[in-house]
């Protein structure tokens, strides 16, 4: 060995040793933070904890650390949190048969929290269960699986024959789709597709938790009181990107306190994090006294006022345009907490989302950015609509800023000449109430947060003909908007996205602008997420998908 080679080898050894030392130190440092109880709080629980049924951001954050699918969104902060990684599958499979077949190989040795091994049968049963329990998106997300038609017609006897096929010998599960789906992995990475044992009853589990696969399991849940999560004794890290180990030993999620009390409890160190948005009157105090406890992150979401395009007065496009031109989005932003916490928005897609290109026709000096309401145009459209004096009821829920936004919208409508009133109803029922056409809701206050990072999650889900189900509580196209021409473009672009995501995103941008011009909504703003945490909570990790990752923060 020459001196030069020796020096080189020594240097490499030194680097490796220091790297190892750093890694060891890092592990030791991480180990120092293990333990303790993380105290979370929310004004109310979010209903069932059945992963195949619950469709709330509040409990998806919980299911994110208790259960796993074949693939997962990466458990990290930042843009990388939108990336898909293998979870219960050994790898993310390459599409076969032109994007209509996917073969997943299951990891061996992964167990449920009841000690059972995860088998291909469990995967098949899980996807059957999606239909059997009438998953909210069974007909819109999982209807591409072969056999889903029969399952949608008669859920109780769902087999998905030929659609999801288990091979015990090879430890694989094969999915056959009726057509390529560019968002299939995203749909598999949401809690709807979390794998549960085949023996799980085909009915809503309610307050009983399905056996967990993640680092934590729900040991008790009382929607009126609290939820307790403890470590899953059978959990071992198989892919830290998909499901890393948790720091705290226990998580106690308390339900009931009002947001005012939640803020006070966090300031006093009695709670570590609150689900609800802090009341606006506490923001200045929080910002001045506890700046290091505040974390602000962008959200892919919108606050909007869907207008029912099928009943008066908003079956008149001019009336809808009048509302859009009259809406002072700066005022709406101020109600939400000011420009640091929200950005005015005129269109369907939120800024920064795939397919988004800035567009705002409903402003003085139309272009890419909203600047001010244009009351002259608003009044001209109102006059053209002939709807002056029409009675309008705005439906808002009773939580957070929604009543204030509803009051503001009433004011805007009255300034245009409508006879508007506000009806505030419980947040527990408002979201389904405004979807059902039987309730004849004319206009309401609503929000939409991304399920996964694809433009279709806003455009196709919220404004396609397929999402409009008259007379149903599950008609997420609240406006009842159905334009056959735009719908054809949407369907065409869903196919394009399978092979050319870039072209598809450009097309989504175009469709977004067309929809904005049709004005089925009055989009108000895109909010940001403000997390207020206790002084002892560290290593704050924020996923674009599921927000604060409870398993990655530590409290000691």
């Amino acid at each position, binding site marked *: 060995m020459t001196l030069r080679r020796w020096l080189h080898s020594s240097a490499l050894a030194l680097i490796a040793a220091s790297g190892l030392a750093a890694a060891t130190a890092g592990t030791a440092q991480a180990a120092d933070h293990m333990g303790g109880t993380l105290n979370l709080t929310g004004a109310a629980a979010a209903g069932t904890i059945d992963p195949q049924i619950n469709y709330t951001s509040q409990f998806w954050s919980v299911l994110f650390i208790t259960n796993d699918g074949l693939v997962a969104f990466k458990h990290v902060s930042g843009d990388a949190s939108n990336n898909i990684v293998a979870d219960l599958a050994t790898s993310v499979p390459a599409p076969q048969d032109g994007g209509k077949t996917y073969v997943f190989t299951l990891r061996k040795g992964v167990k449920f929290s009841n000690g059972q091994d995860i088998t291909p049968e469990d995967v098949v049963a899980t996807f059957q269960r999606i239909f059997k329990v009438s998953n909210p998106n069974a007909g819109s997300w999982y209807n591409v699986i072969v056999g889903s038609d029969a399952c949608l017609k008669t859920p109780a006897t769902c087999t998905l024959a030929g659609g999801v096929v288990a091979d015990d010998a090879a430890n694989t599960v094969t999915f056959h789709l009726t057509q390529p789906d560019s968002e299939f992995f995203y749909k598999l990475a949401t809690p709807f597709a979390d794998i549960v044992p085949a023996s799980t009853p085909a009915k809503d589990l309610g307050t009983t938790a399905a056996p967990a696969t993640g680092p934590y399991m729900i040991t008790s849940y009382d929607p009126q009181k609290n939820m307790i999560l403890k470590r899953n004794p059978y959990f071992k890290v198989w892919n830290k990107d998909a499901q890393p180990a948790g720091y705290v030993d226990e998580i106690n999620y308390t339900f009931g306190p009002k947001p005012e009390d939640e803020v006070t409890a966090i300031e006093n160190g009695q709670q570590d994090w609150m689900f609800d948005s802090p009341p*606006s*009157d506490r923001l*200045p105090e929080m*910002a001045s006294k506890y700046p290091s406890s505040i974390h602000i992150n962008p959200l892919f979401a919108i606050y909007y006022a869907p207008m029912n395009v099928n009943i008066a007065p908003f079956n008149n496009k001019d009336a809808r345009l009048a509302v859009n031109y009259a809406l002072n989005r700066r*005022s709406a932003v*101020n109600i939400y907490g000011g420009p640091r916490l929200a950005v005015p928005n005129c269109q369907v897609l939120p800024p920064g989302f795939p397919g988004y290109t800035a567009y705002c026709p409903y402003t003085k000096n139309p272009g890419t950015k909203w600047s001010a309401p244009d009351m002259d145009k608003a009044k001209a459209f109102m006059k053209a609509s002939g709807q002056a004096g029409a009675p309008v009821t705005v439906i808002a829920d009773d939580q957070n800023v929604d009543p204030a936004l509803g*009051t503001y919208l009433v004011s805007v409508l009255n300034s245009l000449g409508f006879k*508007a*009133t506000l009806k505030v*109803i419980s947040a527990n029922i408002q979201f389904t109430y405004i979807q059902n056409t039987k309730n004849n809701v004319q206009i309401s206050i609503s929000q939409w947060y991304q399920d996964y990072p694809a433009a279709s999650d806003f455009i196709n889900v919220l404004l396609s003909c397929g999402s409009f189900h008259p007379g149903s509580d599950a008609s997420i196209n609240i406006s009842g908007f159905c334009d056959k021409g735009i719908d054809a473009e949407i369907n065409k672009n869903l196919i394009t996205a399978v092979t050319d995501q870039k072209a598809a995103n450009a097309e989504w941008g175009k469709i977004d602008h067309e929809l904005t011009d049709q004005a089925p909504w009055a989009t108000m703003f895109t909010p940001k997420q403000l997390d207020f945490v206790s002084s002892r909570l560290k290593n704050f990790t924020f996923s674009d998908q599921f927000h604060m990752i409870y398993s990655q923060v530590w409290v000691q």
Partner: protein
Amino acid sequence: MSDATTDATLPDTARAARPEGPWRVALRKLMRDRTAVGAIIVLVVIILACCAAPFYATHISQSDPFQSNLDGQITLGGNSVDIMQADTAGLGLGVTPIGPTWRGQYFFGADNQGRDVAARMLYGGRNSLIISFFATVLTLVLAAIVGTIAGFIGGLTDTVLARLLDVLWAFPVYLLAISLSIVFISKGIQIGPFNIPSNSLILPIMIIGIVYVPYVARPIRGQVMSLTRSDFVLAARCLGVPAPRILIRDILPNVTTTLIVFAPLMMALNMLTESALSFLSIGVQPPNASWGTIILDGEDLLYTQPMVAIAPGLAIVITVLALNFLGDGVRDAFDPRAKLRVKKD
């Protein structure tokens, strides 16, 4: 022969010795009660102020108290000031409405919609007073009818009506009012061709008016039963006076004083109930206002602009106290034992 003719034929000394009527005595006694007079003055001031709400909004506040004004500005000390003020310290989070200016515009500051709280208080006070007054009238009328019929007719009619009152009485009054409000506020009331919309003031008037009926009807029933057995009613019956005439000439005048004593106390109670229902969003519906809804608006501003909740709260306290003092005064004025005390004075 009319009373006037009788008076004219009486000598002056006899006219002077003639005892005053019970109403005049009661009024005289009421006017001697300084607390009651003070309460009347306070109530008159409040009522006049509330009646002047449109004038105040147009000429003093110069704003529409039902329209959001989140982007507006006012001039204070020569400077233009935002009504909704963005926090510029620290992280710059939150937007706070302007506080009390103690001047014409935004005297009590703005609420979270940038509306003038003082102007809204006057409009809200008007609604609170209207609801509590008419609910009181409804309670007293219904209670008088039910109580008088039950007490006068007796028998099966009394049993049925008394048990109905017992059933109504058995419900906690706020629980009953909240339950009725939730049912009716959601869709209003449709009775045949008549529709009462959910935002109508008639709904809280009806709900509050009905839930308090047993509180007045039961004592009225007891009083009527007692009067029915009194000597002068027995005498009238023996003389063959028809029952309706006995009811109108002998029973009702005696019951009226009880109703008058109840009136201010019930109005105070109704005002508190209305405020509670409106605070719970099941009373007066936005954009309309009442003191209860303004307190609800102020709930979200307790830390930054507490005056939004304090001002209507104080208005309720002052009005209810005045009504209670007036009620005490009226009771003393109509109380026969109090009459003795006045004579002694």
